[in-house]
């Protein structure tokens, strides 16, 4: 087991490295970025202005060195061994690339770089004194480009994380509490009226677009109910900014537990409906499969009461594949729900990721991608370990 874990952790490190490298390369090679934004709003830029902005965002360094500084905070300058300086003139980037405009075979005119202008190379010695993060492997995600310009990424991520965890943990917990019994009962009462109703609701929940359902809830339970003078729900945010009055409930003070609870109802309902729809179907299918097994028939033949057969013999086995679903909700819990958070203006990680991509804040986007990648590989490992706990037949070696 120990060997297995060591091997898996080593594999995880490799997967994370490639995952981070691929994500970093994709984001940085994609069109756009801070320079495009700035040149579009500033029309009077000269070459020096552009070079300065490129250097500010480290875009003057070649991708591998940029990645290396983001990952491990290196290189920071020439290599110094025993007082001797090595590779001081080693080229790691270019302040002013040569740009040519070319017509591609499709007839489109594109601007491409073709080397570096004379005397404009960036060498290792030019990196001395430049600001740089310590590297993500040391817990430093660097500074934000846009969302909180020049302030640490960790500040904005940590400010959003509790909100997302609050929303996701509650909705996932409720989904499990509702989804499992529904699935089990549907399987036991297959083709009954109850099963048909649950199946229909499941299809409704799975097929209803989240954003539409969310908007519908806001329209009905916030705007319409309020206009009729009925008990209504706040349309969005995690808590109110000012106090308010709800008919029959009375004055609600902003920031209190009641205020937070009222704000949670709609986003949790949307997420729960979506999760329950899928998970109850999954459990139902898994239960039906198990109920047909010989050992269940044997248990019944032994004269065990049906409740014991279901709870002890069938459900425990039916839940094994469900572990995969549950553990993979861990990265989801941290990553947030982009659409639901955006529609309900929930200040969580999902909305932050959406913002980061929209505003080309790659350090923030990379931090979120990396956190998700780390949690995903951990979840995978956790699932494998949990299999051995719930199923004695599985041995890890």
């Amino acid at each position: 087991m120990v060997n297995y874990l060591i091997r898996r952790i080593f594999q995880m490190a490799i997967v994370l490295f490639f995952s981070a490298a691929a994500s970093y390369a994709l984001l940085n090679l994609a069109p756009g970025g801070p320079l495009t934004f700035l040149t579009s709003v500033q029309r009077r830029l000269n070459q020096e202005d552009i070079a300065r902005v490129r250097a500010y965002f480290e875009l003057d360094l070649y991708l591998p060195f940029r990645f290396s500084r983001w990952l491990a905070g290196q290189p920071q300058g020439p290599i110094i061994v025993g007082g001797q300086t090595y590779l001081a003139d080693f080229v790691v980037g270019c302040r002013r690339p040569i740009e040519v405009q070319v017509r591609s075979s499709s007839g489109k005119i594109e601007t491409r770089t073709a080397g570096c202008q004379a005397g404009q190379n960036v060498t290792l010695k030019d990196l001395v004194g430049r600001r740089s993060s310590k590297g993500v492997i040391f817990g430093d995600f660097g500074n934000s480009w846009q969302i909180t310009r020049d302030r640490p990424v960790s500040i904005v991520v940590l400010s959003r994380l509790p909100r997302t965890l609050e929303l996701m943990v509650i909705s996932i917990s409720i989904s499990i509490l509702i989804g499992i019994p529904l699935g089990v009962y549907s399987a036991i009462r297959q083709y009954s009226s109850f099963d048909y109703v649950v199946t229909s609701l499941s299809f409704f929940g799975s097929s209803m677009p989240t954003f539409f359902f969310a908007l519908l809830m806001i329209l009905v339970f916030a705007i319409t109910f309020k206009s009729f003078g009925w008990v209504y729900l706040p349309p969005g945010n995690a808590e109110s900014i000012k106090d308010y009055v709800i008919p029959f409930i009375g004055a609600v003070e902003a920031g209190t537990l009641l205020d937070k609870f009222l704000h949670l109802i709609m986003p949790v309902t949307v997420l729960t409906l979506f999760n329950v729809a899928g998970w109850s179907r999954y459990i139902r299918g898994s239960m039906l499969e198990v109920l047909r097994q010989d050992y269940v028939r044997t248990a019944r033949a032994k004269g065990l009461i049906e409740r014991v057969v279901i709870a002890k013999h069938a459900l425990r086995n039916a839940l094994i594949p469900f572990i995969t679903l549950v553990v993979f909700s861990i990265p989801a819990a941290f990553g947030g729900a982009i659409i639901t958070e955006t529609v309900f203006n929930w200040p969580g990680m999902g909305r932050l990721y959406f913002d980061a991509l929209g505003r080309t804040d790659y350090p923030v986007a990379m931090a979120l991608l990396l956190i998700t990648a780390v949690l995903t590989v951990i979840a995978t490992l956790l699932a494998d370990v949990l299999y051995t706990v719930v199923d004695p037949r599985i041995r890890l070696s």
Partner: protein
Amino acid sequence: MRNHKHAMMALAFVTIASILLAACAPAAPVEVPVTVVVKETQQVNVEVPVVQTQIVEVQAPSYSKPHPILSDLKVRQAIAFCTNRAELIQSVYTWLPADQQANLFMDTNIPGVSWAHYTGPETTKYDFDAAKGMALLEEAGWSAGADAPAGTIRSNANGDRLSLKFTTTTAAFRKTWSAVFVSQMKACGLEILALYAPASWWFGSSTGLRHRDFELGAYAWVGETDPKGQTLYACNQIPTAENGWAGQNYMGWCNKTASDAINAANNSLVRADRVAQYKIFQIEFTKDMVSLPVFQRAEGNAATLDLINFRPSATEYFTWNADQWELADGRDTLVTGQSQEPASMYTVVESSASQRFPAQLVFGTSTTQVDYDFQASQANLATVESGAASNNDVEVKEGDPVVDSSGTPTDADGNLLTLTAGLKIKTADGQEVEYAGGAVTMKQLVVSYTWQDGLTWSDGEPVVQADFELAYKNDCDPTSGAVDYSLCQSIQSVEFNSDTEYTVTYKPGYQAALYFLPPIGYYPSHQVLSDGRKLNDVPTAEWASLKEIAETPLGAGPYILTNWEKGVKMEFVANPFYYKGEVKIKNITISFVQDTQQAVAQLLTGEVDVLDSSTLGAGDEVQTVLDNQDILQVHIVPSATWEHIDMNLNVP
């Protein structure tokens, strides 16, 4: 052994990855692996050095021949007369009351409320008159035949159909009014072939509009308090293959009177002279009808009925008069919704609208631009007319620092310009010349900017001369994080005269129309940071990452920013030391609400009290707030953005 094998495999993986990543680095500039280099698309001042081993010139269209249909003034005027702009406005703003739809109507290139607008008797009016339009087409030789039914496409004596290509974007808004325009033209016997192109092509750097690839083309300009216009209408601003498609006079319109007038209007410093020149321009512009102004877009702003003195303007941020706001119901907290969150409160690195709203609360305003004009908030505008500025003749010789004829202080490489042979400059009499040597006389601006007495930081300390000096030192430092230093580079010297006044001597040749706006603000030089340092002693490069600058800056405006919860809200309290006296609303909170529908829902349920046009927009949500005027005040403002149809006078 087995673990060792895995370790070796992992090492191999890492090595391969390193090689792959290293391969991403550009190769040495030995040769450009392309065969075609297109010498087109000269963008602004960014010179593109081209190094290549092989050049194949691409034959680009020169657009030198007159358009067979649109070069005829009668046809262009006929199009204008046949256009029922009220109907076009109605098609996209069905939710707007008729009287407010009329406010969107545009008759020249300058909005009606602007100080530079002119529609006197000398201008040509194009009120909808289809009969007049059809008569003009008849006169121009385009006939539908005596007994032809209405809507028959006209043709000329050669049998050519009166047919024009109409290009615009795929935006639903434009498609809607364009469809009405097409039917209006058909009613006059003019066939319009509508082409709805992707914005990436229509506004591409080397396609569509930039290369004048259209006959009739619809898009929008954004008007400003200073109307400018030189780059849009002057004769030397016609994009052609020969000039690398520089300029934005996409119509190819060259009317010497209009061109001289727009150049003069853009380069004079005296308001009266500018008004006179804009008048001449608008007379010519309407007469030649090369670009048909269609309408200004509508912007919606909404607030709770309790808010007093809420007065949004198309050319100013809605918080411009927050110090005059008041809540009728006596509440002491106001919540405004804002779709975009600012990146920083440090104005040097963040100047978006989302930052201007809170910045106006914290820093106040030195000059506002309400309703297309300038108002000094703290002292008089530093204009030539007020005596605060003088535009002197100075003699300059080779090697002296100057600004070139386009108003640029540096060359394309970013080096500061000095007077050298070949440099294009403007002489004191306004002529553009190429400097050949010797002494020349140029204009030099000297402006004294005076600030209001009594300016006080929100910690109670008065604003002093050292604060202005710190701002000049910091903002013009190349490590400040700013993108554009052209204003700093245009300054020859600054003399700080007192705690409320400084005098800027600009380099000879600097003649910017907005010279009266203060180029230097102030920072609290006395402020002690959390790490014990005084702001005055902190290196400029660090400023952008300082919490005291980026998140909770000290200001002299009506409010103090006390808390900024990222992604959620910014909280402000009244500044007790505000020089105009303490404000009536004690607390303002900006709530960040990204989605417009969510923002409207919060407005209707009372979670937020104010939504300005940048959050409310001009879509169906405006209809929603208009339907709730029993609980909301709604201000529909004609936007600075205006739609128009350009007519290309040339063909390749």
